[in-house]
């Protein structure tokens, strides 16, 4: 017997968020609320030097006077910043432990996340730093990297071990005063990753951080700082998940990339935070500031696959400061049910002969809203700057929205800026064609969506591309009918 459309729809609706489990590990959590005392307490808990504490306090004072931004095309209940706990560490975690010493329940959790460390070690040549709630739990491959002089460790450790490096670069790309969430992050960030690639070194493996919010009522404020010294190369991956919860969890990260002369950084993100249930309850608020600075001949590529979060506010950007530097932004943003995403990039052309490419693929289903917001700015000194932007939207059904907000500010006459935009719908004739070849509707949509996203998927490292494809499929389940 065949499924009726109704039956099919119903079955699909009951498919749940795959990573929606909660691991019961004992954790050490601060009381809720935010104050200067809490900020100082976090710093103390982490044994930070005085300059770090002062930096946080200064950020906190700035944040206190700031207002939450409202210009994005998203609507949500503003988080109550006094109802969040700003520090939560799995109690048994100790970054200095060997893998064998790690809490078996934690290891079990990694397994559920599909990132069994052993497997990673053997198969993927990926060094992983895992941040659960607010603390880095395990870093693999440290030794191999150390031989090349590469530093890859939790930022809290880096503050202890390489204070001068961290101090020199932190906040130079995203200053504490940059925006509301960046200021908040600067005050209360609890962990994240630090990565330094020495001059002329090509990092031999993908570096990866896996973030997960586990504890209820906590916020995650991680801070990532990647410094690629002259002529070096690194590819960095970041993946995120969170358990399903009714309340909204807050995630406000800051990522700073520094690509010095002739250096190249590839930064890939697969973001799969809990998107809320199909009525729009719960889900992660993902308010992220990501920015890169490119010196002479440097290149930075941001690639992101955003399928999760209830609300996303995120604009990975490039400041093309050095002559001949290159900025790239490849993005797939999927929204389903009641998800809202306002994402895009800023390409700031300061140097001569700077080039930027923006490829954005927005896929909206259900009652979701998906906005692309992008700024291409060419300063008066930036002779011969080039930009190419392409924003494609794919709509599924009649209740979702796709919006494009391209801003162009060119102060140099030699600038060449191209912008292309398309909006399409998945046609019934396409679905029927696939059906006729034996491909059911769910799979057909996945196929069509993958085809639509191909230019961006191709930019991801192999292992990640496969995962991202699966993720696209999962996120759009239940959007048929």
């Amino acid at each position, binding site marked *: *017997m*065949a*499924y009726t459309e109704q039956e099919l729809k119903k079955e699909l609706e009951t498919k749940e968020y795959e990573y929606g489990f909660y691991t019961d590990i004992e954790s050490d959590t601060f009381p809720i609320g935010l104050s200067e005392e809490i900020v100082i307490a976090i710093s103390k808990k982490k044994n930070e030097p005085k300059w770090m504490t002062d930096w946080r306090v200064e950020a906190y004072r700035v944040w206190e006077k700031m207002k939450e931004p409202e210009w994005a095309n998203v609507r949500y209940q503003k988080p109550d910043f006094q109802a969040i706990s700003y520090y939560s560490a799995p109690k048994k975690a100790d970054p200095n432990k060997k893998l064998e010493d790690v809490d078996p329940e934690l290891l079990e959790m990694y397994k559920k996340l599909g990132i069994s460390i052993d497997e990673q070690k053997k198969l993927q040549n990926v060094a992983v730093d895992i941040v659960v709630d607010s603390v880095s739990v395990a870093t693999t491959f440290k030794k191999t990297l150390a031989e090349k002089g590469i530093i890859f460790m939790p930022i809290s450790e880096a503050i202890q071990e390489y204070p001068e490096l961290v101090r020199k670069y932190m906040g130079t790309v995203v200053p504490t005063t940059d925006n509301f969430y960046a200021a908040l992050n600067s005050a209360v960030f609890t962990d994240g990753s630090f990565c330094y690639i020495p001059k002329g070194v090509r990092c031999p493996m993908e570096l990866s951080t896996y973030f997960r919010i586990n504890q209820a009522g906590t916020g995650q404020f991680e801070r990532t700082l990647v410094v690629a010294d002259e002529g070096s190369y690194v590819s960095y991956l970041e993946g995120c998940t969170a358990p399903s919860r009714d309340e909204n969890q807050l995630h406000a990260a800051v990522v700073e990339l520094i690509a010095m002369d002739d250096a190249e950084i590839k930064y890939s993100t697969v973001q799969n935070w809990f998107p809320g249930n199909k009525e729009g309850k719960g889900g992660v608020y993902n308010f992220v500031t990501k920015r890169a600075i490119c010196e002479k001949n440097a290149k930075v590529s941001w690639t992101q696959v955003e399928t999760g979060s209830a609300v996303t506010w995120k604009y990975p950007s490039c400041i093309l400061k050095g002559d001949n530097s290159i900025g790239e932004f490849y993005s797939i943003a999927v929204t389903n049910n009641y998800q809202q995403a306002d994402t895009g990039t800023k390409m700031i052309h300061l140097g001569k002969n700077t080039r930027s490419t923006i490829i954005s693929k927005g896929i909206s289903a259900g009652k979701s809203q998906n906005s692309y917001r992008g700024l291409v700015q060419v300063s008066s000194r930036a002779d011969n700057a080039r930009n190419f932007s392409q924003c494609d939207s794919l709509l599924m059904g009649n209740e979702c929205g796709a919006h494009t907000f391209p801003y162009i500010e060119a102060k140099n006459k030699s600038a060449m800026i191209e912008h292309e935009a398309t909006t399409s719908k998945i*046609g*019934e*004739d*396409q679905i*029927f*064609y*696939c*059906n*006729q*070849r*034996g*491909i*059911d*509707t769910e*799979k057909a949509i996945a*196929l*069509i969506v*993958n*085809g*639509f*996203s*191909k*230019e961006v998927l191709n930019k991801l490292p192999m292992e990640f591309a496969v995962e991202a494809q699966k993720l696209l499929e999962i996120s759009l389940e239940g959007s048929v009918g």
Partner: protein
Amino acid sequence: MLKIKDLHASVEGKGILKGINLEVGAGEVHAIMGPNGSGKSTLASVIAGNETYEVTAGDIFLDGESIEDFSPEERAHNGVFLSFQYPVEIPGVSVTNFMKTAINESRKAKGIEDMPAKDMLKLIREKSELLEIDRKFLSRSLNEGFSGGEKKRNEIFQMAMLEPKLAILDETDSGLDIDALRIVANGVNKLKSKDNAVVVITHYQRLLEYIVPDFVHVLYNGKIVKSGTKELAMELEEKGYDWIKQEAAV
């Protein structure tokens, strides 16, 4: 193999098929001809399970079993193949990837594991040679930017890959140049066996010189108004449809 009984179908309340009766046995080739808008493509779509059309009366049987409740993909899994009059473009999905998915989805439905990559490759090589298709072509996005003739040849390539029990070719000949027509028709003939059947929808006698039908039917105004052997096709080529229309009006 295929039995259609008093089939009525409509779209948006408008009747298009008005009582089709047709029986196609294993090993047979049937041709369906008829003027534009008579309902040929609609019949093909309804057999394939397109839900745009509402079946208001009658039934379709495949190997004696009613397929009324079968979804389009289930019909495909049961060996129904439709070569579309207007093949659809799917940007970013290569012909190879599309075929791989189609084959493995059908296998999955039958409880068979995915076809090993080695076998898939061999199959692709074999079938693309049969239809004289350049391998480079197979990495292109499905039907995107294909010429009219290329689309049709690609439909038959897919048919060759899927080896259906019942193949319905809806105007596969239109758009093909003379050489391509021969290649495609040869391909279809090579795939023919005593266990499968082919229904060709065409406007032209030429195709039927290559793919010789056992029966020819004329569809007019949603009904099969005349059936005969291949001579009927010749007669139509000569005389057009007016005499059929007059006969039907009586």
